[in-house]
């Protein structure tokens, strides 16, 4: 438990304000890494990353809103996400893509 507490306080120092979920530092992909990669490489306007690993940091749910998806079928959109995360995927065991919408689709879904 002491180790856990140390890790948590270290996370606060290193990542204060940059992410929402819990994560563990052990030289592997974190929710923050995944979010950063998707935002930068897909020019995503909105990225939600949920760590579903229960702490080991190797399983994520992602939702991405990006103009890069415009005119692309679901398979191609998933490929874009996989490619954007190519480096991180080496350490990720499971990645669920919950949403890969264009900004237009997001607007429609929100009914605005």
């Amino acid at each position, binding site marked *: 438990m002491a180790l856990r507490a140390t890790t948590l306080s270290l996370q606060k120092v290193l990542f204060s304000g940059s992410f929402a979920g819990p994560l563990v530092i052990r030289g592997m992909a974190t929710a923050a890494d995944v979010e950063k990669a998707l935002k930068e490489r897909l020019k995503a306007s909105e990225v939600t990353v949920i760590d579903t690993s229960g702490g080991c940091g190797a399983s994520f749910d992602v939702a991405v809103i990006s103009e890069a998806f415009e005119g692309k079928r679901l398979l191609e959109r998933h490929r874009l996400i*996989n490619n954007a995360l190519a480096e991180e*995927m080496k350490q990720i065991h*499971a*990645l669920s893509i*919950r949403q890969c919408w264009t900004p237009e689709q997001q607007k429609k879904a929100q009914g605005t």
Partner: protein
Amino acid sequence: VQAQPGLSPELKDALEKFINSHKVVLFMKGTKQFPQCGFSNTCVQILNTLNAPYETVNILEDERLRSGMKEFSQWPTFPQVYIDGEFYGGCDIMIEAYTNGELVETLEAAVNS
């Protein structure tokens, strides 16, 4: 961490033949009787529900197959589904296509082709 032996020409040929000789192929962790991962199990359940004829390949049995398939499909994770000789997608795509009715159409077209 793990070595990537790569996709040998022999394995590539064998995969192409296998995929082209079956309407639906599910490359998964475990078998359809005993899936060893929730995502693979989801695909098995979907295909069973739609009463689709399908073959499964257990990628846990051979590391060359496991790493080779990632390269072959240009897809980093399992399960991987092939329909009518073409890569269709992973678990999320199967769920989405099942939910919106596209999957049943694609399967019907494949089975009747």
